[in-house]
C-alpha cells in the first residue's frame, strides 16, 4: 500500500482546512503539508455554499463583548464561552487577512469601507458579505493561495479512518482511498487536522451539498475522540421543496422572512400566530422550523408535504430586485417567488456539536486537531447566521498556527500500525466479495427517513428509543451490502455512498443518544415531551465517547460560565 509521510495532514478543503494550511505554512514554510479532499480542490465543503456572510466586529460602535453576548444568547447559554470569546475576538484579524493577504474583496459602503449588513439575532449590523455569494469569494481566493504555496493537495481522495498507535491515545495519520483509482493509501503525519465540515445529509431534507456525509465526525468518533453537544442539530426553516430532485432542501435565505414574507399552511393560515404571535415569521430559526414541522405533522401540510412561503404581497418588483438569487433558484423549477407561494420545508442544516477542542484546536487525543463544523462547543444550542463561516475561518486559522507551534518541538513522524490498516482495508472491500445483499442507496433512504421522523425537529423519548434500535438494525444491513453491477473500484460512486453510511450511522447514534439524555427543550433541540426550556434543570453539556460496543457513553457536565451568565446576557 502506498504511503505518504508528512509533517501535517489536513483532512478536508473547506474554509477551516484551507485557513489551517495557509497559517501553518506561513508560520513555517519548511513544513510539509498534505491536504486530502474528497472533492476537487476547493469545490467541496459548505464554506463555498455560504450565502449570507461573516459576522465580525469592525466598527468602533460595535464591540467583541456585544458579539459574544449575541453568540451566547443565540446558543442558549450552553456554549463553551472560551471558544465563543476566541471566535468573536479572532474574527476581526481573520477577516482583515482575508482581504489584505488573500485578496478577497467584500462589498463596500459608498465611501469604500467594508460593508456590514444586519442578520438575525445580532445587536449590531456586523455581517461582512459579498452579495449573496460570500462563500464563493472566500473559497475561490483561499484556494488560489493554497496553489501559490508549496502545499500538496490530494484531490478526490477520501480519508476513511484515523490511524492510532497501539495505545489508542495518539493519532498517527489516516487511511485514505483515491476515489479516481479506487486504491487505498496511508498518510502518516506528525500532526493531523480533521476539518471536513459537518453536513447532516442523513435527513430527508438537507441543505448542505449531498457530497457532505459527516465523514469527519464519524472518523473522530471511531477513533475515540471526546465529543460534545451532538444533540444540537440546526434545521433551517426554508429549504426549497423540489419533489424527487436532489436540489430539494437548498435554502431560501432568511432575509425573505426578514423582509416580511409569510408562512402559510394548507388552510392558508399564517400559523405563526399560534407559535410566536409577537415576532411571527421573524422569529428565530429554531422556533420557525419547529412551528412549520408541527403544522406538517398535524396534517396541515401543503401539496408536497411542506408549508408555503409567500412573498408576493411584498410586490413582484421588490422581490425580483432584492432577492435575485432566490428568485432565480425558484424560477429554474417553475416556481414564481415574486408572485406565488413557494413550497418549503425545514431542512437539516448545521451540526453545533462535534469534537471537544480548546482554543488551539487540540482534541482529546495526542497529535490530533479539529476545527470548523467537526468541532463542537462554539455555538451552543443554536448557531447565529453568519457565525458559521466565521467559525470555520477563525478556528482553521487557530489550528494552523497551533499545529506549527506544536511541531516546533521535534516530534518525528510516527509509524502506523500495519495490522490496523490491513483490517480496515479488508472491511472496506468486503462488499465486493458478496453476490447478494441490500443496496446502499436503499439503506441510505431508510436512514434519512428514520432520522427525519424519529430524530428530527420534534423529538420524544419513545421515538428516540426506537431510533437507537433502528440505527443498529440498519447498521447490520449495511454490513451485508453487495456491490454487484457497480463496476470496479475506480470512481465507483455507489461504493463511496456505502462508505458514507458508516459515518452517517455513527453521527445518528451520537445525536439520538444525546437527544434522549437532554430532557428539556433548548435551542435547536425540541422535545415534544419536554416542550419548555428548563433553566432550573441547570445549564449543562452532554459529552460522549464511543464505548466498546460501538454505542456512545454519555456524561453530563455543567457549563462553565466563565465570562457571562444568562442574566448578564438577557440584561
Amino acid at each position, binding site marked *: 500500500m502506498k504511503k505518504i509521510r508528512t509533517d501535517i495532514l489536513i483532512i478536508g478543503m473547506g474554509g477551516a482546512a484551507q485557513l489551517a494550511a495557509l497559517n501553518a505554512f506561513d508560520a513555517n514554510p519548511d513544513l510539509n503539508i498534505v491536504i486530502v479532499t474528497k472533492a476537487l480542490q476547493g*469545490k467541496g465543503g459548505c464554506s463555498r455554499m455560504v450565502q449570507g456572510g461573516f459576522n465580525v466586529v469592525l466598527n468602533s460602535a460595535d464591540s467583541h463583548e456585544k458579539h459574544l453576548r449575541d453568540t451566547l444568547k443565540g446558543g442558549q447559554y450552553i456554549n463553551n464561552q472560551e471558544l465563543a470569546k476566541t471566535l468573536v475576538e479572532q474574527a476581526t484579524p481573520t477577516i482583515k487577512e482575508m482581504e489584505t493577504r488573500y485578496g478577497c474583496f467584500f462589498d463596500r459602503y459608498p465611501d469604500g469601507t467594508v460593508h456590514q449588513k444586519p442578520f438575525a439575532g445580532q445587536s449590531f449590523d456586523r455581517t461582512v458579505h459579498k452579495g449573496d455569494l460570500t*462563500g464563493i*469569494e472566500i473559497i475561490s481566493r483561499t484556494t488560489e493561495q493554497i496553489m501559490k504555496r508549496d502545499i500538496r493537495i490530494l484531490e478526490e481522495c477520501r480519508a476513511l479512518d484515523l490511524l492510532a498507535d497501539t495505545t489508542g491515545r495518539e493519532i498517527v495519520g489516516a487511511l485514505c482511498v483515491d476515489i479516481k483509482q479506487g486504491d487505498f493509501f496511508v498518510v502518516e503525519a506528525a500532526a493531523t487536522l480533521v476539518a471536513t465540515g459537518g453536513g447532516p445529509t442523513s435527513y430527508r431534507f438537507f441543505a448542505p451539498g449531498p457530497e457532505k456525509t459527516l465523514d469527519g465526525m464519524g472518523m473522530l468518533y471511531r477513533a475515540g475522540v471526546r465529543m460534545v453537544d451532538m444533540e444540537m442539530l440546526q434545521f433551517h426553516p426554508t429549504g426549497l421543496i423540489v419533489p*424527487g430532485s436532489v*436540489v430539494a432542501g437548498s435554502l431560501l435565505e432568511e432575509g425573505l422572512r426578514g423582509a416580511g414574507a409569510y408562512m402559510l399552511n394548507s388552510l392558508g393560515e399564517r400559523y405563526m400566530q399560534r407559535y410566536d404571535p409577537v415576532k411571527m415569521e421573524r422569529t428565530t430559526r429554531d422556533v420557525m422550523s419547529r412551528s412549520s414541522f408541527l403544522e406538517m405533522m398535524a396534517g396541515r401540510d401543503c401539496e408536497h408535504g411542506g408549508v408555503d412561503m409567500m412573498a408576493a404581497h411584498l410586490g413582484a418588483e421588490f422581490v425580483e430586485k432584492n432577492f435575485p438569487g432566490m428568485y432565480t433558484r425558484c424560477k429554474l423549477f417553475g416556481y414564481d417567488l415574486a408572485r*406565488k407561494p413557494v413550497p418549503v420545508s425545514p431542512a437539516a442544516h448545521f451540526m453545533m456539536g462535534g469534537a471537544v477542542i480548546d482554543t488551539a484546536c487540540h482534541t482529546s487525543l495526542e497529535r490530533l486537531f479539529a476545527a470548523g463544523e467537526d468541532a463542537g462547543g462554539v455555538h451552543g444550542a443554536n448557531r447565529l447566521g453568519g457565525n458559521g463561516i466565521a467559525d470555520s475561518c477563525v478556528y482553521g486559522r487557530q489550528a494552523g498556527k497551533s499545529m506549527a507551534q506544536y511541531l516546533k518541538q521535534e516530534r518525528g513522524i510516527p509509524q502506523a500500525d500495519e495490522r490496523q490498516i490491513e483490517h480496515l482495508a479488508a472491511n472496506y472491500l468486503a462488499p465486493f466479495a458478496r453476490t447478494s445483499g441490500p443496496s446502499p442507496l436503499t439503506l441510505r433512504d431508510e436512514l434519512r427517513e428514520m432520522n427525519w421522523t424519529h430524530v428530527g425537529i420534534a423529538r420524544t423519548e419513545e421515538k428516540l428509543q426506537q431510533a437507537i434500535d433502528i440505527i443498529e438494525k440498519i447498521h447490520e444491513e449495511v454490513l451485508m451490502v453487495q456491490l454487484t453491477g457497480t463496476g470496479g473500484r475506480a*470512481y465507483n460512486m455507489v461504493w463511496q455512498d456505502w462508505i458514507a453510511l458508516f459515518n452517517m450511522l455513527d453521527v445518528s447514534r451520537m445525536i439520538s443518544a444525546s437527544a434522549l439524555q437532554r430532557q428539556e427543550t433548548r435551542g435547536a433541540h425540541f422535545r415534544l415531551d419536554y416542550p419548555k426550556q428548563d433553566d432550573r434543570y441547570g445549564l449543562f453539556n452532554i459529552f460522549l465517547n464511543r464505548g466498546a460496543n460501538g454505542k456512545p457513553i454519555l456524561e453530563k457536565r455543567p457549563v462553565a460560565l466563565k465570562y457571562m451568565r444568562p442574566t448578564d446576557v438577557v440584561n
Partner: protein
Amino acid sequence: MANHAPKTRIIKVFRYDPAVGGPGHFDRFELKTDDESLTTILDVLIRLQKTQDLSLAFRYACRVSMCGSCGMVINGREALACKTILADLKGEEVTIRPLNHFPVVKDLVVDMEPFFRKYEEGLTYFHAARERSEPAIIRPDSRERRVIESSTECIACGCCVSSCTMANWHKDYLGPAALNRVFTLLADSRDGLHEERLARSLGSCYHCRTELNCTEVCPKEISATRAIKYIQRLAAKEVLKPGSTVRSDLRELMPPQSTAPAALTPEPEDLLPAVPPPTLASRREFLSRTTLGIAALTIVFLGGVLAATALAPTLRKRPEKWVDVGQAEDFPAGSVKTAQIRYPVKDGFYESTVSKPVFVSHQENPDQFTVFNSRCTHLGCMLHWDDGKNLFICDCHGGQFKPDGVVKAGPPPRSMDRYLTMVQDGHLFVQEA
C-alpha cells in the same frame, strides 16, 4: 406551479471504463419523468444510476451551481448538470458527454488537472502590492470595481475551456477561465504582480479568436471574452511603456525604428485601471522565474502581430472602387480636415456599409489634395489631427506624423498610408481597395 404530464425520453450517455480502455461509447437509456420542469440533468443521472446502471459515473458536489463540479456537454453545449432543466431541452433525445479537452477518468468524469495547471501558470492568485493592516478603501463605484464587476464569481467549472476551439490548439494558451482571473487581478489595484502576470498572459491573450463560446456557455454569466480583450489592450499599451520590465525584455526584439515614445497619453478606453508599480521585492521574487517565459512569450506575441500585418493585404479581395469624399471646395488650401467616407460592401452573403474617417490635406498648390488613411502604421490605432500641434497623433503609443504623413516621433515604422485621389465634377474621390 407547472404541472407537466409524465414523459419518456431517450438519454444517451457517454461511457468509458478505465479498466477496459478504448475510445468509449454511448449507452442508450429510457427514462420516464413525472414532471420534467422539476427535473435537472443531475437528477436524471442520479436516477439512471439508481434504477438502471449502478456503475454510471459523474461528478457533483453542491447541486446548486456554486461549486462547478458537474460541468458536462449536454446536447452539444457545455452546462452545469444541476442547472439544466430537462423540460428546457428540445427533441426526444438527450445526449450527455464529458467536457472537451480533458482526459476522461470514467464515463462523464474528467481529469481537471490541465485546468488547474493552466490556472496556476497564469499566476492567478492575489499577491499584495504592499503590507496592509486594514482592508483597502475602494469605492464600489470606482473604475476598477466597475471593470471587475462580477468576474470574480467564476466557479472554475471548465465549461468555458471545453467550449473554446482554441484551448487545445496552442500549447501556451491559458484559456478563458485562467485569463478571466488574470484580468480581475490585473485590474485590482491592490495586487502587486501586475507586470509578471501580464508577461505570463502576453503569449496567450492573442490566441483568442473572439468566438464568444466561453461567454455563451458560462453558467455564471461571466464574459471571458471581455476579460481577454481587456488584457490584449493592456498588453499592447504596457509593452511599450518606458521602464516596464516587459518592455526591457522586448527592446532587443523590436524593429530598430521602434524607439521609445516621447510621451504617453492615456488610452481613451474606459477599461483602463490605475495600476501601481509592483514592489521591488515582488518583482525580484518572480523575475527569476519569469524572465525566460517573458522572452519566449514576447517572441510569440510579436510574431503574431507581424504575421497579421504581413497577411493583411493578401486578404483583401474586393474590387477597387472610387468613393466620394465630398466637395473639393470644402477642403480649403493650407488645411487638414477629417472627412467620413461611406460605401457598401458585400462579403459572400453578407452586406454592410463601411463608414470610416480619412484625413484630407490640401497643400498650398491649389489642386494638390492628399488623402491619408486614418490608421496608425504601428498597430492600427485610430489617429487624430491636432490643429494646435499641427500633427497627426496616435493615442495608443504616442506615434506622431507631420502634415505630409511622415513619421515625426514614436513607434510607427513608416509614413501614413495614402489613397489614390482624383477630382471630378468638383468632387474629391479616393480609390478604396
